[in-house]
């Protein structure tokens, strides 16, 4: 349902979309039923000459069961929704599968900066590649992101992953994603962070391993140092 409006590009996007569809079906049923009965009653019991309203207290069993039974059925539906929500939540936010690769995401007023591992494949080494506003990753690789904020609250949001995590100053928050498609997509800041909040647009570039290697070769600090003639 969501894919009509926004692509899905992560392993858990379909889980989240599935949950949204589940909620739509269950909630949609009750919504349509309630509105139909509601408008039906308005039409059917509109004022007519000589027809008096009934006197119903609502305590009568023949009428109150029309409230109690839907009430119980809704509780059942809610249990399905809760189960779905907790499963998806556990998978995305509680469970942390082992990382194949790691990146650092740093939010500040008003730009994103990223630290990606360089050709040595390890983060926090000398050949890390630091970028501003563009995050380069490989498809089909399970990444841990380490999210920081330099000043105020920000939020790392990648709609095509269905991912969102607030960045809190004073903390490093770790999460995961695994991209299933290549391409270039939006990164948003999803927590108001001052007057530049609206220009805090980033891009995530998802490459094939070959494309990613080529990018690393072009951008590693060593390459840049050679380019400058050291």
């Amino acid at each position: 349902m969501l894919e009509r409006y926004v692509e899905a590009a992560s392993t858990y996007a379909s889980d989240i979309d599935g949950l949204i569809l589940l909620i739509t079906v269950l909630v949609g049923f009750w919504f349509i039923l309630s509105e139909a009965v509601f408008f039906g009653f308005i039409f059917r019991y509109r004022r007519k000459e000589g027809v008096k309203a009934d006197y119903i207290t609502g305590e009568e069993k023949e009428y109150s069961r029309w409230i109690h039974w839907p009430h119980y059925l809704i509780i059942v539906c809610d249990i399905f929704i809760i189960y779905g929500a907790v499963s998806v939540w556990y998978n995305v936010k509680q469970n942390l599968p082992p990382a194949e690769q790691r990146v650092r995401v740093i939010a500040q007023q008003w730009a994103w900066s990223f630290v990606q591992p360089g050709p040595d494949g390890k983060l926090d080494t000398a050949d890390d590649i630091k970028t501003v506003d563009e995050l380069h990753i490989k498809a089909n690789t399970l990444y841990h992101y380490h999210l920081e904020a330099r000043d105020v609250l920000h939020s790392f949001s990648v709609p095509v992953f269905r991912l969102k995590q607030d960045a809190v100053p004073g903390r490093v928050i770790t999460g995961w994603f695994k991209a299933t498609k290549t391409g270039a997509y939006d990164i948003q800041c999803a927590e108001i962070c001052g007057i530049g909040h609206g220009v805090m647009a980033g891009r995530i570039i998802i490459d094939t391993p070959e494309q990613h290697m080529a990018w690393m070769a072009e951008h590693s600090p060593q390459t840049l140092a050679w380019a400058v003639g050291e």
Partner: protein
Amino acid sequence: MAHTITETTHAAPHHEETFWSKYVFPLDHKRIAMQYIFTGMAMAVVGGLMSYVFRMQLAFPGMDVPGFGLVSPADYNFLVTSHGTIMIFWVAMPVLIAGFGNFLIPLMVGCDDMVFPRVNRLSYQIFFLSTVVLLASFFVEGGGFGGAWTAYPPLSAKGAYSMTPLGSTLWLVAVALEFTAFLLGGINFVTTAMNSRAPGMKMFDIPIVVWMIVIASILFMASVGPLIAGAIMLFMDQQVGTAFYDPDRGGDPLLWQHLFWFFGHPEVYVVLLPAIGITADVMTVFARKKLFAYRTVLYTAFATGVLSFFVWAHHQFVAGIDPRMANIFTVTTVLISIPIAEMCFVYIATLYRGSIELATPMLWALGFIATFLVGGVTGLYLGASGADIYFHDTYFVLAHFHYTFFPIAIIGVFAGITFWYPKMFGRMLNETLGKIHFWGTIIPFNLIFIPLFVLGLGGQHRRIYNYNHFPELAGADFQNLRVFATVSLLVMLLFQLVFIWNFFVSFWRGKPAGKNPWNANTLEWTVPSPPPHGNFAELPTVYRGPYEYSTPGRDDDFWPQDAPN
């Protein structure tokens, strides 16, 4: 030893009234109600014009907005912040709780005024001061606060981050004063409803709208305390330089979020309950039918109120709280939909086998149910933590809460005003204009916010002044939805002129209303319109509940509460 009720109700001695004692410093609950209602409606105009400006910027980014000029990013953040702040604290609360509460409670329970008229007057004076402080904050150096109505620190705590050091503090002081005003007001609502009821009015004979305002006052009182503590700490951070919320110096930004939402969630029920109470009282009159399962309505209101204290962190699922905590709050949040759903079913059941007249107040009451249902069901998407990962901070949230808040603050208010206008002013509103205003509001309302649901599904995030910076959101199809929503808003705003015309012209030229133009049962309809000082010439005695409509064996299809037989 038991004394009769008359000795506890305050019968103000009749004295010479000046302009000042009558309109500026009144003690009479009806006048104080008018002060709150008019202030609230004036602020609704301010908040509504703000939405006009920022929606024009969204539809036509970078263009001069007629009447405002260019909207800078700072302007935009200020406008959305102030719009939210004003609509909740300076429109919904004063009109629904203090306005209708003050006007209706003494009249509906059968006494001459609130128990503490001077505290009542003081509460409005503090509220008025809060309004002045808020409006002043817009014009100070640096501009008005723009960190959203939720005011999360560190943005709200440090002028270096917000760029609005003085505006941030004045905003905070205004909100704190507003809280104080409503804490004071609550004293009167609760004590008058509990203690000053006319003889014979038992607990279950009290009209639902009075109950709802009482429960709302209790909810407010219990939830706002921790936020007042939080606001004191935020003020200290802002002005004294403490570090309550500064992580670099041992503080925690998330502390504010917990304190804020511990209040913020019950707050939505604080404003919902009076609106839903008004809806019950209007629906029963125009369906000529007893309220279905009065006690169930009360119990669901209490249950919702209690549960509302256990759901707050659903606003913080992705905020950095312990992920395990999220599961608890998903369970409680999804479960809170149950009593609300039950309440909606009971209201719909009230229509069953009724005799429904679609007068203007009834249109508004029915419109409340139809639109609130959308708001209620879309809440499930947000309460389900797994789905909220996607929907948090998108326009889906915004559309959800407008489908709850708009019915509450606008539709419910219009239901109340069109219904009690005859009692308040002694004149009938024009019915044709009323219907035009209704349709001209409710249809555009849906046309504004359905596109916003779609934009939210597409991942459009909140509080962004120009979506052209985001390639996935900048396409023509999304931009067309933004333009469509804005044009619908313009139409809706224009139709409000019909209401303003109707309101003021009917004041002078409306048909005289008489005591009971709607053939309703509750006590306010037994006194002249408008009610005189002191309300009741004789203390009424109550013989039955408020919803005895179409009682079998009677000629009339209504049975006033104070009629002996």
